[in-house]
């Protein structure tokens, strides 16, 4: 409860963060409930192609006469699922490795950190592109694993350095004397202390995963099937949207959907940051 009231106090004073949080909420609602109210039909009517915005189609229509807005709403869910799943994997692996190696130390720490350094150095996006084209999957879970292939490494390093400083604190010493298990030590004693940092990283990991997954669909590396924003832009570009002004709404609506969501996440994460870091509020 303290947390929520703190969060509300910060949001009330920081308009950007408030709007960001509200937008994230709206996108979440659209992802959960959107497909119940809106559907993208199979009927195609070329005579309805590239209509200007109207009450029936607030963002106009695409080359097949289907409403752009309804496609964007339906496309929210697959994007959010992959983003959140990938962030869960990234954060879970990063935090588990960071806390364990930071707390245990020794040879295990050295070995695992060398491996982490390797993942940190290999350029993530080219590796993701190679893996996605090799595996060529439509399964969101597999896609999420591919997207988090290198993303956990940076988090693991950051969490490790925090765990190392926690190791010498009194409450850890006390727990050690009581002989708590390693699982308890990591999960109950250390984890709550890095919680805030993890929460913010979770949001940023979602934006990173959305960036990469939309990119994969855009370039046509992930299979083009179903509805999502990356596929919409890909199709619009393939149909020559750059060379005609008719299709401007079709091309720019999914782009706007992505930009608004990404910006909202970043502004909202900044508000979380100042809830957790009272020092930031003073500055």
């Amino acid at each position, binding site marked *: 409860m303290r947390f929520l009231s703190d969060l509300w106090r910060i949001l009330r004073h920081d308009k950007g963060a408030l709007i960001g949080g509200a937008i994230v909420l709206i996108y979440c609602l659209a992802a959960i409930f959107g497909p119940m109210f809106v559907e993208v039909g199979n009927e195609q009517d070329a005579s309805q192609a590239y209509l200007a915005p109207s009450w029936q189609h607030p963002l106009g229509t695409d080359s097949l006469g289907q409403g752009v807005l309804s496609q964007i709403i339906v496309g929210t869910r697959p994007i959010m699922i992959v983003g959140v799943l990938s962030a869960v994997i990234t954060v879970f692996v990063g935090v588990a490795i960071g806390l364990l190696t930071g707390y245990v130390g020794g040879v295990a720490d050295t070995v695992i950190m060398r491996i982490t350094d390797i993942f940190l150095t290999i350029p993530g996006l080219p590796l993701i592109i190679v893996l996605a084209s090799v595996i*060529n999957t439509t399964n969101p879970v597999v896609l999420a694993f591919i997207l988090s292939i290198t993303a956990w490494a940076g988090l693991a390093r950051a969490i490790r350095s925090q765990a190392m400083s926690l190791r010498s604190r009194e409450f850890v010493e006390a727990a050690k004397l009581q002989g708590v298990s390693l699982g308890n030590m990591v999960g109950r004693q250390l984890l709550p202390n890095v919680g805030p940092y993890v929460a913010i990283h979770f949001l940023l990991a979602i934006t990173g995963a959305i960036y990469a997954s939309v990119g994969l669909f855009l370039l046509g590396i992930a299979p083009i099937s179903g509805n999502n924003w990356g596929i919409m832009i890909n199709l619009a570009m393939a149909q020559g949207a750059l060379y005609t002004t008719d299709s401007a709404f079709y091309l720019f609506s999914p782009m706007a959907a992505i930009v608004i969501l990404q910006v909202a996440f970043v502004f909202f994460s900044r508000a979380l940051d100042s809830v957790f870091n009272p020092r930031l509020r003073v500055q």
Partner: protein
Amino acid sequence: MVSYILKRLAMSLLIIYIVVSLSFFMIRLMPGNPMAALEAQLRMQGGLSEVEIQQRINAVYSVTPDAPVWEQYLRYVWGAVRGDLGRPITNPGTTVVAVIAEALPWTIMVVAVSLIISFVIGIAVGAMMAAFQNSRFSQAVTFVVSFLSAVPSYLVAIALLYVLTSVYQVFPSGGAYGVDVTPGFNGPYLVSVLYHSVLPIAASVITSFGGWALGMKGSAVSVLGAEYVRAAEARGLSDRRITQSYVGRNSMLPMVTQLALSVGFMFGGSVFIETYFQYPGIGFYMIQSVGQRDYSLMMGCFVLITVSVIITNLLVDLLYPLVDPRIANPAARARAADQPADPDQEVLPAGGSMA
């Protein structure tokens, strides 16, 4: 110092070895085995003897399909060491390395120039934001910069293409230089190269300078509150001396560290930018080869992108002791590595989290 360099060198070679091995095993384990697919395709065409088919596959993947796996692997790695990464399926007349050798300079030019420009602009804007904290100006700039750093670079590329090459035909929509110039060291060619690189560079600068500015602001603000700055003020040093030698230099340190990490990210982002601007860099060929199922070229691009990133990281690592003398001193380095990272600064990574 020598052991510092040797360690970095060993680590770099290890990563290159791992990536080369990875590319070998990925081609073999890929669903629908591309080597078998190529073999079937060559049989279908007919007119080739069994030996010729084997030779063609050997040329493309630099792997003899009949040999045991460990022998194939050793051959592949040995080939990679000598700069033989096979031949592209789509154009067997040339080699993967030759295609990449032509493409790589373009990518390195665009990545290096946009990295330098966005770093310089970012540092300047960030320092200004720190100097005028809490002013209207700083708030407005913070908003703009946060906004831009959250926008994916490929969307900026599409928007630039739409406005500047399609609606207003101010810039060329593709290529590294015009068709009417002869490559070489002459004026028209250099101007054309510059002209064609404006949009790709602009797209990545627009989306990446914000990260640098925010990082620099955070770094400078935390230095401004440090004891040694107050001590310098108390000693009555000039403002200029304080900003340059105390605040400037110390707040630059974490930025230089970020520089090494962001190189990989810039190379990754260049894949999108090169594809959209049809700029004949390594990322462009990588995406083309994915589309054409040309796996030997795709893996070659991946290996070479990684090698370029590692070499650039190595360069940054070697330059780092110039900025921070502590780093070449093992005892000081161990102390610095064990210190917990400042959570305020690491929350928003410059250049994005998917590096």
